[in-house]
Structures are given as C-alpha cells and as structure tokens.
C-alpha cells in the first residue's frame, strides 16, 4: 500500500506545484488576489504532500518494507534504528525528496514572511519557488521514483552503504541541502526583481539574511563532509578536490562573492548587474553540482547511483541558465550603476578584487572539474587534473583573499586617505610581519606557511584593532567594558557577525596550514609485541580480536601509544567485513587533540593475529578546522540576528540627490 500512497502523493504535489506556480505568476500579471491566495494554498498543500511522502518512506524503513526497491537497497534487518531513519537520504531517490521538501519548506516561510510586506516581488518569487519544487517533483515522479515496487519481495535488504553508517552522514547531507536549497530564495527574488523591473536593492535587502543562512549551511555541509572524509575514509585528509567536493565548493565561492558584493550595491548603488549574475551563477551551480554528481558524466570516488536523472537536471539547468540570463539581457537598461568607482584605494575596490579572486577560484575549480570532459570532446583523450593543479592555482588566490579579508572591512569607502591607511593598517601589518619573523625563528621553514601565518595575524590584528577602538569609543559614553562589547555586538551585529565569521575562516586557514605543513606519517608491518616510532611516540601492537556485529564482522587491532615516559592512549582501529562488500572497510581509530591527532588505520593482517600492517599518522592542527566551524556558526548566528539599528554607521555616500 505504501508505494501507491507515496506515488499518489508525489503526483498530487506535482500537480499542485505546477498549478501554484502558474497561479502565482498569473496573479501578478493581472493582480487577481483570489488567484494569489489560491497559489499560497497550493504551496501549503505541496509542503503537506511532500511531508507525507517523507513520513511514508520513514515508515517503510522502520517496518522493513522490502516490497519497496529503495528500502531494500538501503537497509537490511541489521541496520540500526537511527540509520533506518537517516537512510531516507542515504541514496539518490530519498535525497531528492529531502531536497524537494526543503524547497517547499522555504516556500512556506517565504509565504508567511512576505505575503503582506512585499506585494510586488513576492508573487513572482512564489511562482519561481513553486516552479523549482515542481521540477524536483517531476524528478521524483519519473527519473528517480522513491516509491518503486520490488518484485519478488526479498527476505532481507541489501543494506546501507557501510561508509554511510556514520554520524557525519546523518548531518552532512542535511546541512548541504539546506545550503543548496537556501539559495532558491535569493534566486527567486532576483528573478522576481528582473521580471517586475524593480532592479534596485529591494531584492537584496529582502534576501540578505536568507543568503547568509544558505551560505552558512553550505559551509557547515562542506565542513561536516570534510570531517566525515577525515574520520571515516582513513586516508587522513579532509579535502581531495574530488569532483563531488568541487561541486559543493563552487557555489560556496560564488555565494561568498555575492555576500560581499551586495554590500557595495547597498552602499554605493554599484554592481547591480554583477550581483544578479552572481546569484544566478550560485543557484545554477547548486543544480550543476547535483547534475555532476548524479549524471555520472565525470568519474569520482563518490560512487552514486545513476540513471536518467542527469538528463533531467541538465534540461532544468539549461532552462534556469538561459531563462535567467535572458531576463538579465532584457532588463539590461535598468541595471546601470548609479555610483562609480572613485579610487583604486578604497573599500569598493577591495571588495571588487575579493570578488574577482573568488570568481577566479570558482572558475579554476570549474575548469579543473570539467577538464576531462573538455579534453575528451576536443582531443578525444581523457585527461584528468588532480590535486596538484587545484592547489597550485588556488593557494595564491586564497592567500590574496586572506589579505583582502584584512583590508576590506577597514579601508575607507570611496577614497582611502594616507591617514586612514596608516591608522588602520600600520599596527596589523607590523604585527603580521613580526609574527612571520617570530615563526621563522621558531623554525617554520615553509614559505607558504609563513606567508599564511603572517596574513592570519595581520587579519586578526585588523579585527582586534577595530573592535578595540569601537569598544573604547562606547566606553567614553560611560559603559563598562562588558556592556561596551555586548552593546557593540548587538547593535552592529551584521558587521561584527561578519568579523567573527572572518575569524572562523582564519582558524580554518590555520588548520589547513598546520595539517599540510606539519603532519607526518609512517606505515609498518608489526609482529605482535613489536613497536614502531613516529614523532616521539612509540606504538606497540598488542593483538587482534574478531567480533560479530549486528550487520558485519569486525576485526579490531589494539595498539598502545606511549610518548617515551607514559602511556598516552590505546587505539583500536578495525576492519569491517560486510557480507555484500568485496573488501573490508577500514574503521579508523584516532585521538583528537588541539595540536595533533593520533590517527591509526589497520591494513592487512594475519588471520592468526601474529602480525598486522598499519598506517600511523600524526595529523597536526586538523581540529582547528572543526573549531573554525564553530566560530563560523557563532558569527553567522550573530549576523542574521534581527538588526537593532536601521541606519548604517557611515553616511550613505553613494546616495546623491538626483534631480
């Protein structure tokens, strides 16, 4: 019964979404309020129906309803309870439901929030959002139906991909999709602005917070993905420039550019065309990412199921890109900048440079990702570019971005005077140089690492200096330090939220530098009782145990680690053997630390437990990535908090009296 109910709900939701999109669009053409109301009800209906689909699927998972292909493919009787719920997004079909559900949820929030306040833009935005929902429902109906019947019904399912049985995989897709789908809202309002012709900063003001939310979830999704890769895959890294990672990273880059460039539009009435282009690119790249990972056109270590879904995504991508850029071309006359760049030494140009670098990074990642395709199309030869290419091109770009992160927030608008530069940057620059010199003396030999450390200190210095000055100014009005700090964070939450996000990025940058420059590893085959030494640690192989788990067989090694004087920890890496997998899957064991993680992977071993091959890594400062993620979370939360104060602190320089 469940498959039929689910399929019926999907089709009904599709019809409602299609109708709602049409009704919302038509209502804004002829101003019919009843149609608009009807489209809003359709939006509610779509959300209810997709929610019903999700609940049906969860129910099927919990009751082991192997009459459904999706359930049989992604669980078996041994799958633990919580993974049976999260198996919902363990594979393609369920992920599409989750995606559609999030879009429909965002649509509801848009209805609730803007129904009364944005009479011009809102109906078109609603139409676009329902249109996007409709696309995902089409995919659910035709290309990747989650409610497909399986016949004959098997006794037991195949089970979830063992690598996905991890807490990271419970949260990673959710965060990532909240990010991806979140960009639907700014995109929808941008399209509405183009259609209606209100191309001012109205749509940007409406969607500012949405963009930060989506950006934050995307960042979180990327970080959790890195964490999963780090502690599950057993290669000791968190980022490999794999096409699938790149697919999520590209919209992050363009969204970051967008977050910054809208500030210039708000302040100086410049870059209207640019901002619209950026949001179109960001939204398109979220679709492109899914297309790339699900179509199978580019090889990736992420082995996803494939089907006809690629064609659907490509068609929709074409529709979105061609449609939105055509709208842009049509409204080109209204997208002229009202302000102009006064000086190269100004905040505007710092932001512009930041945008150029971010776009350059996005372009190189795009280029590197589709390069195998390009080379095959042009020369008939499959060539792939690997991590060396991405690192070579992107490291200088990211260093430049770090530098601009220090310059941008403090340099004066319009034209920076020598006094402004001296006052804001002399101390931080000096601090950066001194820090690099100190690290050099302390024995840091790597030039890139030194450069990065210096830049991090410089940026942190600018933030600290600015915050200190602002606090001091508030202190003059009689506040204590604590009130001054708190008041500042509350009143200028957007500015200081952004600063905290910057600090989070700095912490992440330190993690990247530390892990790349100072990690060390060794491989060894040890007889029982034998030891291996690495970076002051002595590791001893104590023995192997075998155990039977709920859905797999597990061989666990026990290793003690001592640092010369005392026992530090005992690590128990394992190899898990799932009945359906040909090879064993390594389960890493590790001890996380602020400065270094001890990270141990079990390789081959003798069945009698006499010897085992292991890989021991001392990964330095990887935890800083996760700490940076927490800082980022604080900053983003602060930045989206309701603003206390309407007018910005500086006079709106670009707003001239227009006669």
């Amino acid at each position, binding site marked *: 019964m469940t498959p039929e109910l689910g399929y019926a709900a999907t089709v009904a939701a599709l019809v409602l979404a299609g109708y709602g999109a049409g009704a919302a669009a038509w209502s804004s053409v002829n101003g019919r309020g009843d149609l608009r109301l009807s489209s809003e009800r359709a939006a509610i209906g779509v959300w209810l129906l997709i929610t019903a689909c999700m609940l049906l699927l969860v129910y099927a998972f919990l009751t082991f309803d192997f009459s459904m292909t999706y359930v049989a493919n992604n669980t078996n009787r041994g799958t633990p309870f919580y993974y049976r719920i999260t198996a919902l997004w363990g594979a393609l079909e369920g992920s599409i439901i989750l995606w559609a559900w999030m879009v429909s949820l965002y649509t509801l929030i848009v209805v609730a929030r803007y129904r009364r306040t944005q009479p011009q833009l809102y109906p078109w935005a609603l139409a676009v959002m329902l249109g996007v929902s409709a696309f995902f429902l089409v995919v659910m109906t035709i290309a990747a139906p989650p409610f497909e019947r399986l016949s004959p019904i098997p006794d037991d399912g195949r089970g979830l991909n063992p690598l996905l049985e991890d807490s990271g995989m419970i949260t990673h897709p959710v965060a990532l999709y909240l990010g991806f789908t979140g960009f639907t809202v700014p995109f929808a309002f941008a399209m509405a602005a183009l259609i209606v012709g209100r191309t001012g900063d109205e749509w940007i003001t409406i969607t500012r917070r949405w963009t930060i939310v989506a950006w934050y979830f995307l960042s979180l999704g990327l970080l959790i993905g890195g964490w999963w890769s780090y502690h599950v895959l057993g*290669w000791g890294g968190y980022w490999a420039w794999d096409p699938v990672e790149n697919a999520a990273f590209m919209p992050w880059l363009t969204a970051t550019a967008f977050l910054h460039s809208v500030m210039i539009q708000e302040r100086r009435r410049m870059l209207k065309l640019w901002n619209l282009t950026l949001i179109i690119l960001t939204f398109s790249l979220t679709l492109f990412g899914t*297309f790339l990972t699900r*179509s*199978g*056109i*580019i*090889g990736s270590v992420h082995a996803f199921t494939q089907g006809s879904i*690629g*064609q659907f995504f*490509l068609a929709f*991508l*074409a529709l979105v*890109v*061609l449609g939105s*850029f*055509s709208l*842009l*071309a049509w409204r*080109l*006359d209204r997208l002229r900048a009202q302000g102009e760049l006064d000086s190269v030494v100004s905040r505007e140009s710092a932001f512009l440079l930041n945008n150029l670098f971010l776009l350059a990074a996005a372009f190189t990642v795009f280029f590197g990702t*589709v390069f*195998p*395709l*390009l080379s*095959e*199309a042009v020369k008939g*030869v*499959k*060539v*792939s570019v*690997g991590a*060396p290419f991405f690192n070579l091109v992107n490291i200088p770009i990211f260093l430049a971005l770090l530098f601009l992160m220090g310059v941008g927030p403090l340099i004066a608008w319009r034209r920076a005077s020598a006094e402004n530069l001296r006052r804001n940057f002399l101390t931080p620059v000096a601090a950066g140089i001194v820090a690099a010199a100190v690290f050099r003396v302390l024995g840091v030999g790597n030039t890139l690492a030194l450069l990065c450390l210096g830049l991090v200190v410089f940026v942190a210095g600018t933030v600290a200096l600015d915050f200190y000055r602002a606090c001091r100014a508030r202190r003059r009005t009689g506040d204590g330090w604590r009130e001054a700090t708190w008041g500042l964070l509350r009143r200028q939450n957007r500015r200081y939220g952004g600063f905290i996000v910057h600090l989070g990025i700095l912490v992440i940058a330190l993690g990247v530098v530390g892990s790349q420059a100072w990690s060390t*590893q*060794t*491989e*060894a*085959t040890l007889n029982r009782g034998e030891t291996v030494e690495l970076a002051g640690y002595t590791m001893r192989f104590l023995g192997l145990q075998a155990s039977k788990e709920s859905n797999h067989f597990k061989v666990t090694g026990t290793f003690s680690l001592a640092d010369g004087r005392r026992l530090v920890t005992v690590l128990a890496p394992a190899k898990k053997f799932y009945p359906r997998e040909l090879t064993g899957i*390594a389960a890493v064991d590790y001890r996380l630390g602020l400065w270094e993680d001890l990270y141990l*992977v079990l*390789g*081959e071993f003798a069945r009698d437990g006499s010897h085992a*091959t292991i*890989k021991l890594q001392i990964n330095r400062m990887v935890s800083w990535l996760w700490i940076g993620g927490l800082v980022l979370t604080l900053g983003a939360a602060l930045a989206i908090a309701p603003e206390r104060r309407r007018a910005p602190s500086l006079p709106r320089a670009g707003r001239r009296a227009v006669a």
Partner: protein
Amino acid sequence: MSGRARALRWAIPLAVVPVLVLLAYGFRTDPREIPSPLVGKPVSRFALTAFDGNRVALESLHGQVVVVNFWASWCYPACYEEAPSLERAWQTYKDRGLVVVGVNFQDKDEPAKRFLTQFGHTFPNARDPSGRVSVDYGVYGVPEAYFIDRKGRVRFKRVGPVSDELLKQQIEPLLAEAA
C-alpha cells in the same frame, strides 16, 4: 541603445550554450573507461635515475618483457596491496627475461624510500622528479602498470593494483613470444 548593442546583449545568455553542449556531450562518454592510446604502439623510451643511484634506461631492456609500474608511497592501500605481487613476479620470471621497473609518481624521497625498504623491492625503482615519464605514459592515477613485449610495444595497460593472477596471465604469453 543602438540596435547593435541591443543585439549584443543576447550574447549574455548565448555564452552559456557551449558549456551546456559540453555537459550534454558528457552523456556520450564513460568516465571510468580509460583506454590507453599507447596499447599496440612502441613504448616511449626513458632513462631515469634509480633510488640506488643506478641508471634505468628502457632502451637497454630491449628484447626483454618489461612491466613498468607507477606507484607512490601515498597511494594507500592499492600500491601497498600490489607491492608484494610485483616483487614475487620479478623473482619468478626474471630468469626467463622479465624486468619489472617501478616509477615513483609525484612523491617525496623519504616516504618513497621507506616504501621500498618496507617491501624489500629488489627490482629497479626510479624517481621521476619532473613527472615527464608519467606524462608520456598518460598515467591517470597510481597504481598503473604497463606491459611491454620483447619488441618494445605496449601490449596491456592496467589501471589499479595488479594481482599475482593478473601478472601471471599477462606476463607468461609475452615471455613465450620471440623477440
């Protein structure tokens, strides 16, 4: 706005068409299938310095069956899995005219040497510091192995680790051929 500028603006949406076409083209290809254009062709020659300081020149191996194996110490676990098999094959067939040549791919000296010590490799292993040999052979990722017959032609390419069976199956017919 002039007519020309009016027409030009449509260049914005049109600019994305080639990208879309390229992506559509992707459906016609299989990313996992990587045919080597080298199979059947004379091998590209190289002369490299081995880790023990000796010179490894492919030219001097003419008339012998050669397995060129590209590996790296960071390539875990695949390169570690195949390493003992390579040594075994070399030990088994070296008297019948087989040479195994290891080429270290995008690696650092220290861990590469540790790798060799760990597996006790006795066949020649060379550094490829400029990466030129890897590029000449079109190495996509490590491990990869190229099987070269006595006439100096590439006869088979293996992407991924080699096993004892695969080595036996590929090497024995080549050894049976006349030079």
